[in-house]
């Protein structure tokens, strides 16, 4: 459904990056406060998807804030390894609002040496398996996770296969 307001003023280009983009596309009081706070780093509106980058230390508080705004459903958590740039790991949390019928992507970057951030299993228990998967395949630690063990690979496996410096054929 096209929004009648945006149709009326087609000249004004929508902001696609930064705080303005986040404020233009995010609905909710707690999240707006978050965007104005020191936790916010950057945002991007592209391909009809809103990505908000936050500082990794604040991820639990940020998840609670968006949950408060009606983003009630944790969909997905994964990481992308941007080796050799630093901070190396880019974690993407996909959160859905069943009421607003919208999703946002929360992004936190963590560095390559001893990558670590807080577990959000206290906010959404659904994150349990997803955090274990990221730990297993990328080696990112989640502080406060009830039992952070390998989930896909055997327990005695060496290395984290989805890292870019891990060869596709494995170590031989």
């Amino acid at each position, binding site marked *: 459904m096209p929004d009648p307001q945006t149709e009326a003023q087609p000249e004004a280009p929508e902001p696609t990056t930064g705080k303005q983009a986040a404020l233009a596309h995010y609905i909710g009081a707690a999240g707006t406060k978050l965007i104005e706070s020191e936790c916010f780093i950057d945002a991007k509106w592209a391909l009809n998807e809103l990505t908000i980058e936050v500082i990794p230390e604040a991820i639990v508080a940020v998840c609670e804030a968006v949950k408060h705004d009606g983003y009630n459903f944790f*969909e*997905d958590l994964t990481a992308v390894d941007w080796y050799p740039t630093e901070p190396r790991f880019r974690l993407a949390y996909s959160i859905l609002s069943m009421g607003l019928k919208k999703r946002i992507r929360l992004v936190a970057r963590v560095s390559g040496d001893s990558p670590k951030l807080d577990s959000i299993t206290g*906010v959404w*228990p*659904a994150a349990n398996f997803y955090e274990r998967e990221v730990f297993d395949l990328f080696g990112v630690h989640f502080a406060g996770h009830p039992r952070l063990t390998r989930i896909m690979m055997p327990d005695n496996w060496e290395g984290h296969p989805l890292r870019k410096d891990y060869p596709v054929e494995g170590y031989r």
Partner: protein
Amino acid sequence: MAFIDELDKPKTRDTTGATLAGFRNAEDMVIPGVEDVIASSTGHHAPHGTDPVSNQTMILNMGPQHPSTHGVLRLVIELDGETIVSLAPDIGYLHTGIEKTCEAKFYQQVIPLTDRIDYLAPMANNLAYALAVEKLLGLEIPERAQVIRVMFMELMRINSHLVWLGTHAMDIGALTVFLYCFREREQLLRIFEAVSGQRMMTSYIRIGGLALEMPPGLTDSIKTFLDDFPSKIAEYEGLLNNNPIWKSRLQGVGYLTAAEAISLGVTGPPLRASGVDFDLRRDMPYSGYENYQFKVCVSDGCDVWARYIVRMDEMRESVSICHQALTKLAALEGQRIVADAPKIILPDREQMKTQMESLIHHFKIVTEGFAVPAGEATSSIEAPHGMMNYYVVSDGTAKPYRVHMRNADFANLQALETMCKGKLIADVVAVIGSIDIVLGAIDR
């Protein structure tokens, strides 16, 4: 954080009206690991002495070869008599590193890999991946291709639900239903074979459209199947609905409330059977689903029986959507089935052999692939098992930098412990059947 302290904390209210207050805490709902279950059991052992039998729990390994775990799922169960004290799924036996393999392939070469993820609905995987890449490329898909996609998505849903019903009923002890379901599934597999050349690993939906034109006469055989199928659903229900064993094994078993389902990331029929009215086809439509009339099947039962009812109704709705798609298809005769993008989509053989330019495009696509603009995109579809998301990250080259699949099965499995705790071991079999997992989608 300062901004969160100002919020009135306790009401974690979701849109369905259910509250987490009064239920278990979020921390309590995190399912234990295998070691937790074993540790818990040793903790429950009474000291050797007076009565060695009472106060003892037993650890039981179910799977990975157990037939009722529908693949290579291993469950470690702590039992007190026949009652489940705690339970932990152990997965990874089918982990083949598909996500890693994707990073070494061209974009178009990933399609056959996606077939192998949820192998009961390969076209759903093809579609979710294609939608994500098409989003990055900004491709317009012709309406005819979209209608065919929707039609095959619904046939895939019937296909997947038939396997679910057959194996679920077989676990409960009704072997006949399995044979009936596979009889109809065979007709569907013939349709898939006719359209793509493959019974299961179809790779039919490609980036930018479809692989091949439908062979002449296929719409007639699809129509024959659709006309016949509602009577078959009635046949299955005739075998099951009034069957006292089926009823007593399903009703009131595997209870999962709406709030629990949402907290645990459950999607698809199990979510709708817990009374949450959410279906991506209607709420966040893709591939033109907004142009079809269908009912989203919801039940308030929250148990295994409700999931059975929801899936049976979904099959009927799928038949209706397929009929609508066939009607639309008749009006779209002659339209292309691929987008107008010669540098991305392989030309057909005729053109490739007769036109120099097509030959060059063909050579380029096959040897070098095609570059996709840098960025990230998520596609989300309502697959037979629930929400299926593909997250594709491009760095501007011809190979995906990262492909991640979010399959409903992986998250739905987390709800198993909540549904089984404190219940009987026989119920575990019914509950596993009701969440309808495919281990290919869980382990990837």
